[in-house]
């Protein structure tokens, strides 16, 4: 393992407590809502904040150890960081920005400029070498920030929301190029993002950080198949219902009952319902589907092929139906509606 870190830090209302291991050449995405501690986690690894508890080891070297007091300062860590908003130095040209890390480490001016211009070439910005950061587009600034971090041959690379500042049009291209550069980087890489698409495109593995704690980790497919929190469920667009499972029936705190068909043992559990599995009826359905809840239509979100119907009531659900089905039941926000779902369509997992 290249990076092996257990981080404990109390910072304001944030209580960070996470163990992270990243192999050489591996790219790990840190997903999480705002305020979850993603940036703080990166700052700990970069050496800009010391941990209160725990220890950070890179290739066997101790960078930070709360118990022994060992701490390697940021400037001595050789950890490359691409900051949110890129933080290019406005008084320096693109070339001088890239050369900065080499100059700071005592590389001579001519050699630093030569190596910096090689990197500008690699990110396709040779023509922009003399531009000031203000004159660069978002995508170009991101490339300069990446080149600036990589030119010093860091032992580990940390990226904080590297694509968040870009508009949708350029995002795809920049993301593809970023993937290419991450692939050719040999060290451990952590990418902080709040976009599952970025995580999917860039990372081999995903860590979900919520309120300072890791709530889930694995490949993105593993995480989305079994969302363990409301955040992940909303991220991947499924309904996530927390409750207590007893004899196949999940009882929520709000008094709703969800009949399931899985073999999850009794106790605290999560049920996952895909929005496409939910059917909506104007009147109480005949026969006896085992799951039928009377709900209120809270909102309608009409897309081209499908309509997402937000339901309120004892269960807050998102259902996805066809425009034809919507026309048939003819409901508007505020109307009562019955939602049904087959027990076999509901997957469960222990909490």
């Amino acid at each position, binding site marked *: 393992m290249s990076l092996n870190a257990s981080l404990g830090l109390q910072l304001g209302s944030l209580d960070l407590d996470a163990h992270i291991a990243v192999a050489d050449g591996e790219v790990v995405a840190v997903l999480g809502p705002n305020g979850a501690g993603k940036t703080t986690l990166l700052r700990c690894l970069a050496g800009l904040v010391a941990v209160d508890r725990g220890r950070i080891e890179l290739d066997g070297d101790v960078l930070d150890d709360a118990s022994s007091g060992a701490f390697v300062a940021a400037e001595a860590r050789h950890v490359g*960081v691409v900051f949110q908003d890129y933080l290019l*130095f406005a*008084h320096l040209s693109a070339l001088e920005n890239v050369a*900065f890390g080499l100059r700071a480490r005592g590389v001579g001016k001519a050699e630093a400029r030569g190596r910096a211009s090689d990197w500008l070439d690699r990110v396709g910005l040779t023509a922009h070498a003399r531009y000031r950061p203000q004159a660069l587009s978002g995508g170009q600034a991101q490339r300069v920030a990446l080149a600036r971090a990589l030119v010093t041959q860091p032992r580990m690379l940390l990226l904080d929301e590297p694509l968040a500042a870009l508009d949708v049009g350029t995002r795809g291209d920049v993301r593809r190029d970023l993937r290419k550069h991450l692939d050719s980087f040999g060290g451990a890489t952590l990418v902080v993002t709040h976009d599952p698409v970025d995580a999917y495109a860039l990372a081999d593995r995903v860590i979900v950080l919520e309120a300072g704690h890791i709530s889930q980790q694995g490949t993105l497919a593993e995480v989305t198949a079994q969302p363990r929190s409301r955040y992940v469920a909303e991220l991947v667009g499924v309904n996530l219902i927390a409750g207590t499972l007893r004899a196949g029936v999940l009882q929520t705190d709000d008094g709703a009952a969800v009949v399931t068909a899985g073999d999850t043992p009794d106790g605290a559990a999560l049920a996952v319902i895909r929005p496409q599995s939910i059917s909506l009826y104007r009147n109480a359905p005949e026969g006896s589907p085992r799951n039928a809840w009377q709900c209120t239509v809270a909102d309608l979100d009409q897309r081209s092929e499908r309509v997402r119907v937000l339901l309120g009531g004892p269960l807050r659900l998102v259902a996805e139906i066809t425009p034809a089905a919507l026309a048939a039941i003819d409901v508007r926000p505020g109307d009562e509606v019955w939602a049904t779902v087959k027990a076999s369509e509901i997957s469960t997992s222990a909490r």
Partner: protein
Amino acid sequence: MSAIYPGRSTRRRTRRGRSRPPVAAVLLASVAVLFFALPLLGIVIRAPWRSVWHIVNASEVRQAVWLSLKCSLTATSLSFVFGIPLAWVLARANFPGRGAVRALCTMSMVLPPVVGGVALFFSLGRKGLVGQYLYRWFGFMLPFTTWGVIVAQTFVAMPFLVLTVEAALRQFDPRLDDAARSLGGSPWYVFRRVTLPSIRPALIAGLVLCWARALGEFGATITFAGNYPGTTQTMPVITYLAIDTNPEQALVLSLLLIAISFAVLVGLRDRWLGTGANAGAASFGGAAS
């Protein structure tokens, strides 16, 4: 316009949409403008333009100009060396009593300069709190020496640099320092290569304000350093003394000082005559000497 502001407003507004100020305000403001303009005009009109060069070239004036430049530039350098770290500490470090420290270090801006001179005399004078040891141990005496002038000017002028730079450091994104450190820059390297260049406009403005204040310093200088031609007789001091004995010389020296102030004002016009927040750092005033 009238569609949006019907009725009364139409009458009150000019075509450009700006409201016309009331007549009384315009009259009072005109008096204020005259109040500032007339004294300057008086000097310009009364100045003996034909003999300007002759007067400036007089040895005692040349001496005073040279001394003033030397002292004010040294005071500005001292303010830079000690004031920049002070501004950095005030902007970045979090310690109890920071407000009190800031008030203490910038008090000389509002203190009557003569009081500053008296305070320096009783602390750094030959029998002063610290001065007595300077004299006893090193034989070093500040009052009535050129170094006394420099100390008096630094005492009065440094706060202008400190407050301007502190304000700029507060606006500076400290994450830029983080970025520079993550690239291998030592704290000192980062300060020189990132922090200072990033606040360059404020730094220059602060230095110019500080220098102008040092150049014009009179009250603390004459109290602490006295009035010895060649060693402590600076331009403002000789100007004051010339009013009775040689009014033409006083006029010409005043003209020279006005020209310098005017150059500073023009040089800093973006900060001084600017609008809103940009003008803030330069908009504080100081007590006249």
